[in-house]
């Protein structure tokens, strides 16, 4: 009868997995490696540079306070607001820079596409959990810090199946 052989085949197919490697990534100890240095955009060519779209990085020496990132975000997440910074910059007389609320950001990266001065890029950092909503708001000084994300694991495929390994 078909149902008996079907049952046996089902069991055989399932029990094969006792022998092959576990696929699961053990997350906090093992982290995935991403391509590139985070998503960037080249305004001259008008095309993005591949990378993971995580937390932003802001280059204070390039940001002119033109608000284009904030305008781009206006219809998307309204996560970017321009705030005053204490320091004076030659290219940024008014001294205003973006502040990003990660409680609202959708990580689409269109603010990076809008920046014509190579000042706002994205990084590999996705671990942004915080205890309060206020802590999710990143000031320009916090955004200037380069994240220390270092993932080394990636998916490997061999005769034992697919698994995560360094």
């Amino acid at each position, binding site marked *: 009868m*078909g*149902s008996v052989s*079907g*049952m046996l*085949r*089902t069991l*055989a*197919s*399932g029990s*094969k997995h006792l022998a092959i490697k576990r*696929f*699961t990534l053990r997350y906090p100890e093992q982290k*995935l490696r*991403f*391509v*590139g240095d985070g*998503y960037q955009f080249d305004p001259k*060519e*008008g*095309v*993005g*540079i*591949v*990378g*993971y*779209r995580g937390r932003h990085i802001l280059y204070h020496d390039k940001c002119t306070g033109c608000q*284009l990132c904030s305008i*781009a975000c*206006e*219809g*998307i*997440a309204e996560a970017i607001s321009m705030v005053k910074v204490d320091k004076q910059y030659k290219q940024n007389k008014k001294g205003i820079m973006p502040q990003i609320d990660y409680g609202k950001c*959708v*990580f*689409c*990266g*269109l603010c990076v*596409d*809008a920046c014509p001065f190579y000042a706002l890029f*994205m990084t590999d950092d996705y671990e942004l959990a915080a205890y309060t909503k206020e802590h999710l708001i990143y000031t320009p000084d916090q955004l200037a810090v380069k994240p220390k994300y270092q993932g080394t694991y*990636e*998916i490997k*495929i061999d005769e034992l199946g*697919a698994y995560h390994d360094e």
Partner: protein
Amino acid sequence: MGVEMGKERIPGFELEGRDEDGMDRGILTLSVGPQHPGSGHFRLIVKVDGDMIVEALPDPGYVHRGEEKMCEYRNYIQNIPHLERPMIADSCGILYPYALAVEEVCNIPVPERAKYIRVIMAELNRCIFELYWLGIYGIFLGHSTMFMWPMADRELLIDLAEMASGARVTHAYFVPGGVRNDVPDTFPEKAKGHLLYFKNRLKEYKDIFYDNPLFQARTVGVGILSREDAINLGATGPVLRASGVDHDIRKVEPYDVYDEIDFEVVTMKEGDSFARAYVPWLEMYESVEIALQALEKMPSGPVRTKLGPNPKGAVGEAFKRVEAARGELAYYLVSDGNPKPYRVKLSVPSFREIPVMAHLLRGAKLADMPSIYWSMNYWPVEADR
């Protein structure tokens, strides 16, 4: 005369065996949903006579977000992230016709390489979506292995999508004029490895799920949709093809480079829940084939036409449709020459499954409801827009 059931009144529907005063005392009304007992954010008002469903009234609208109106207040680029929100599991599929329509309205050329990358990403997303759906279908029929396996194998393809676009699910990758960024150099090789492995894994799904007598007992011969009904009720996608209609937008109206790629449209004649679950599985094979062919043929060159930050459309309109994972997905876009669209209309496949669902559930057993409902590939958020 209709049946009175609380406040609802169904015109033109007559029940047999009513009392003399017209009340249907033998009929019990159940509300399936909207708080997610396996239905999504969607309510089915099910009227049962004993174990049989006499009437199922779909009640959508709980997750209506006003996507179409939102489009009118944002420019063509700002519309991208929110338009993929209705269907984040297939975010390239729902954004594809939008990109095509804006290209037509704004007269934006698309580089050849971008077309191939789009096809690859669309097919990866089709598999990602169908695995997600298959996992949920499995768990709602009590087959928890079928939940674990597709969710794990989906990770292989999400890994590829993330490598190309930089995000796991909401890629925001297709833009008018191409794609956001070029794929990395290592992508074609890695993609081939993952896709070939995935193709082998698909065979195991047949062993553990489709050939499983328990799954077959729940689905074979359940909720049969005939070819005529499928056409008349306006079914689309795998539901239509499972009823034997050979209709696929990728063949009927090829967009981008689908006409240069060799693939077959999968159809089945049975039209039952099993066929509706089996067609997506067969389609995943075709998707892998399409993606492999596109990787092979992909030329080098630019991937995005340089645009201003605020592209303006010419006065005109565009109607573009693509074959998303759930069926035909169309955008109708009207431009009055401003940077913002005058009107955007989404025609989504999930919405078109609602009459089919109501038709199939009528007369079925209540216990067959999950098997019919999930085989429809219905996603409330997409249907409500």
